[in-house]
């Protein structure tokens, strides 16, 4: 069985897609830039774009509303929940920000990058509320996922 698993491993390694042609692989920067919501749906992509623009312009209520509209179209898209967590954090609604990030985690499956980012968001909300131990534990969860 172990052999079988090892074989799969090798196969997977061979299949690792698109290292940029020529030039070295870009160094993994930390912290990661917030990922753009990945979706097939142009409606969701459009709403996220305007949410981004609104959030950047400080129009946080409108940004949150756009993300909620997107969530009505794709309620299980973990990136949308994460985006909402980020807006709530900006609005200093720390409890909601934490819960949104947890909701995002519940839909994240095995997307460890996304989950690590959620744990970092959770850590920030806990720090903001003075829960240093909780924040440390959350950061550790993030680290563990990042190094995976």
């Amino acid at each position: 069985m172990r052999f079988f698993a090892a074989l799969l491993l090798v196969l997977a390694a061979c299949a690792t897609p698109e290292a940029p042609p020529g030039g070295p692989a870009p160094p993994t920067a930390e912290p990661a830039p917030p990922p753009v919501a990945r979706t097939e749906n142009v409606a969701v992509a459009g709403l996220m774009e305007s949410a981004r623009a609104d959030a950047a312009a400080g129009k946080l209520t409108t940004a949150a509303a756009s993300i909620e509209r997107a969530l009505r179209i794709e309620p299980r898209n973990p990136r949308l929940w994460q985006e909402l967590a980020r807006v709530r954090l900006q609005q200093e609604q720390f409890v909601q920000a934490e819960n949104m990030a947890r909701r995002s985690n519940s839909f994240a499956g095995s997307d460890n990058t996304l989950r690590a980012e959620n744990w970092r968001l959770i850590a920030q909300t806990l720090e903001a509320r003075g829960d240093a131990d909780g924040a440390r534990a959350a950061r550790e969860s993030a680290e563990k996922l990042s190094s995976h």
Partner: protein
Amino acid sequence: MWQRKKILRAAGITFLVLLVGAGAFTLYLDHRVRTEFEGRRFALPARIYARPLELHAGLRLALPDLEDELRELGYKALIEKADPTREAEGGWYVRSGERLDVGLRAFMFWDGAQPARQVRLAFDGGSVGALTDTEGREVALARVEPLPIGGIYPAGNEDRVLVRLAEVPPHLVKALIATEDRTYFTHAGFSLRSMARAALSVGSSRMQGGSTITQQLVKNFFLTPERTLRRKLTELVMAVLLEIHYGKEEILETYLNEIYLGQDRDRAIHGVGLAAQYYFGKEVQHLTVAESALLVALVKGPAVYDPHRHAARALERRNLVLRETREQNALTMEEYAAARAADLGVSRKPGFGTSPYPAFLSLVHRQLRHDYDEADLRSEGLRVFTTLDPRAQGAAERALTKRLAQFDKDKRFGAPGLEGAIVVTDPQSGEIQALVGGRDPRYRGYNRAVDAARPVGSLLKPAIYLTALTDPAHYTLVTPVDDGPFVWKSRGAPDWEPENYDKKFHGMVPLRTALAHSYNAAAARLGTELGVERVLGNVKKLGVERELRPFASALLGAVELSPLEVAQMYQTIASGGFRSPLRAIREVTTQEGKPLQRYALAVEQAFPQEPMYLLAAALQGVVREGTAQGLKAFLPPEIGVAGKTGTTDEQRDAWFAGFTGDRLGVVWVGYDDNRAARLSGSTAALPVWGDMMAALAPEPLALEKPERIETVWIDPQSGLRGVSCPGALELPFVQGSAPRDMAPCASPVDGAVEAVGQTIEKAKSWFERLFKR
């Protein structure tokens, strides 16, 4: 001599006193006219809207359903686009095969105005395949204006839509002047000639009353409808004063907005703006000559000349108005002839009074009262955007009405008949999509969905099993639980000996089976072992805020909840333990569209995901193999519905609560007077739920598997591991909690098969991770 002098003096004094009195009275009236007319703003109802339909490629919506919604909004089905000016305003659609061109109207949404625009939809089976503009360029998203679903009205349920005089077509004004007050633009507020004529022609068929438009406005505005000479005089003086202070245009505009023009059940139709919408489904500026004449005809008596009820009388009066207008040379011969030949043209759509969805509206009103003054709600013209989904609401109403009629016929229990209530929500966001408060959905009274608290029976059992499953070291889906006879003794209360629905006891059964078949003895024993207070604590965490008293009988649903509270409880289950308060309102704006408030999506993780996942999987078992198997007749098994039936003592209450991938529904059926309905959750509530959901083509329920959940093949007989055992089931467990031992029927290679399976699983998720990055 001195006597005459005395009399003269007395008369003089009397005259002076009268003069001063009249002067003072006039001054008083002048003050009233100025302050009240100036300060007077029309009280405008808060307008309530359904959710807007958001069109985009990939939307699961069938073409006929979109057509229905557009028709509801008053959109006209055209054979082909004809009139370019009307076309630009929207409000129409053209269907050709699986393609639909829609002219969307402009609308002021809470986040800004959206201009009218044309879009083209290509349908692909039950969903939108592509959304483009008419040139074929991709459109990401297009919002359809939301359906108005009622209002919160001022005293007397007066409804109106304010218009400016400039928006009113000249032919309407001319018809009004010709019919009601020919010398309007020249008189000083009253007309001696028409007063004299009115006095002389009492009883004749001449149509002019003695009152000018100004007098009519004064009467409606300031005075009570009594008919005394004093009041008539007051009216006259005030009319003159009004004319002194205000211009003809201003008075006319106010009159056009004030005038009472019809009655839609409990809603009073005021003003030409609303009347145009109510009778003809159009904006006032688009009224034809004939339509305008009908509105003017209604001024004399909206009930007597009601075009819906007394079409012939209305037509006769309208033509009289046209003739009077023609006599004043305000119409050309051609216009007159064309208008006379036109039919009444009133829309067939029946009015719904203050709202077609009174149960939902009452919930919205209640939620609004938390944040707004009642007086403001009834006068400020607020715009309220809600979560109501007209399609879900329609499906719920039809399912309940149809089934209850059928049950009544089968049962012959006589009047009053069975009642019912339904709540439909979005399981992820907690938005309330439909609310039915009784078998007559138009009845504005007892709202059972919100106000009826009824025993919930077995609907509470999931809370017992959830409590157990939060302790995976001791409870899994296959842990044997005891469904033997059970007696609960507590001091000061009679012994409690719950029986099973089939009057049998089933001995040791796996936990998931006890839930699937809703065994009472097993649930009562398990619940008391876990602790009644602990279980009820979890009911509270699931979102039930009502104080529940910790009696053991509560475990089997002696607690009374409203369908809305049950929906809240099941929402938390459906969303994997993330509780979202059920909401009916999204946004509120001022009349001009300035945002006042947004009711944001809020979630709180009330439970860890793992036990919620196990519970939801067990609730799918209820439908697959338990008390809700009857759903198979309504929905294909791939939908994977999770749900629970509930039936109370002597079958007084029948419940079904369940969810799919995109909707959660709670159905209650029973009698208001608590008679035994002799209908169980699975025979009465389930068919209503099934009819409703089948009409809505729900999305399959794919539970989000938490990381710490693994699946293991289990032999149903022994509850132990065994891939190769007959009828082996793949069941979820919290990692490490699955049974270790192999079932007697398991073949020696089972262990190896499992290991391969697990390795492949691991490799698969590893692969996925790799490629997702």
